[in-house]
């Protein structure tokens, strides 16, 4: 399954997903009210240590930070220019710590388990007449069809290339939308043919 999950069996992998999610949520709430560089330095060391407990592969996951390097640099620059560098350093450290902590949960929790942990939150859906398993089914459908849509797009691109000798164009997006909509009608029909999103067990 497509996920950022890191295969493994560490202590962190074994912790219940719900607990990890709760910890990250509480952590970010608390850190938002902290503004001491020393506390953040401690947090940073602690969170890197967390990655280190996963071994070399865990430390390699720190490369996920690359995505926010641009942010951090820009942030420091703007704060420096406005003469509030101290605040900028705190904000940047908070950013790095929180991103690392949140990603730690992501890489140590299977997508399935994460879904199981949050599904009970959807129970109130039944008050609105929607089956609470709808979100899970939606997630499944996306995971199944995202790769397929990419395939559809690359086929369109081939057809386009064959006739124009150009690589790609935004013009392909319209036929792409049409094809995927037509396909989604077929999928809806297939889902209905097998009893629909609400299931069949309601009948005796």
């Amino acid at each position: 399954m497509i996920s950022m999950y890191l295969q493994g069996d560490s202590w962190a992998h074994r912790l219940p997903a719900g607990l990890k999610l709760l910890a990250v949520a509480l952590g970010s709430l608390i850190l938002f009210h902290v503004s001491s560089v020393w506390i953040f330095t401690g947090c940073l060391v602690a969170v890197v240590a967390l990655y280190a407990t996963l071994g070399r592969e865990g430390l390699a996951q720190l490369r996920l930070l690359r995505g926010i390097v641009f942010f951090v640099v820009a942030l420091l620059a703007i704060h420096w220019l406005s003469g509030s560098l101290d605040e900028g350093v705190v904000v940047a450290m908070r950013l790095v710590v929180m991103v690392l902590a949140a990603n730690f949960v992501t890489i140590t929790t299977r997508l399935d388990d994460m879904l199981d942990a949050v599904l009970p939150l959807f129970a109130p859906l039944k008050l609105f007449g929607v089956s609470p398993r709808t979100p899970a089914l939606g997630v499944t459908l996306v995971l199944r069809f995202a790769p397929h849509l990419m395939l559809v797009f690359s086929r369109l691109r081939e057809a386009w290339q064959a006739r124009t000798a150009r690589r790609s164009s935004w013009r392909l997006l319209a036929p792409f939308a049409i094809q995927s909509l037509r396909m989604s009608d077929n999928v809806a029909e297939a889902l209905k043919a097998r009893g629909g999103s609400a299931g069949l067990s309601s009948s005796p």
Partner: protein
Amino acid sequence: MTDRSLVHIAFYAALMAALGFMPPVVMPLAGGVPITAQTLGVMLAGVMLGPVRGALAILLFLFLVALGAPFLAGGRGGLGVFQTPSVGFLIGWPVGAFVAGWVMRLTGGMAILPASALAAFVGGILAVYAFGIPGISIMAGLPLVKAAYASVVYIPGDLIKVAITALIAQTVARGLPGALLSRS
């Protein structure tokens, strides 16, 4: 919710993911800032699916990202992305899709091209930035004005996406009548 709505929602969420995998285009017009196709997905979801289904499609997509699917442009995903300064934009996405769908419905009598351009602009730019800029301000500890300056580089790219959205909506309405669910 009908099975058909659920599948449409899931398909637009999957479309968002597929758009995230497309290489970002560097537009000379936008001052060399790479623009990704994903805000295009937000505009399209609202314009094509209508307010409720459009917003739900984006929410489903963000839900998957939060669960750990690397579906944001550049293969990003996981809980971490909701801790970065761009979280405001992510929150603005479903709102933007909703607003775009809503404008589409309000302008029911207008031709599709201008109506969808207006919808994409109001939903995909105004609504999204209304959340995105305060997001930067809060997460990066900057005053609102500075946060607005920091995001202004993306506006030209977004304007291009508004135009593309309108053209796609018009083409789809011609090629597959009935697919423009926001109008049916």
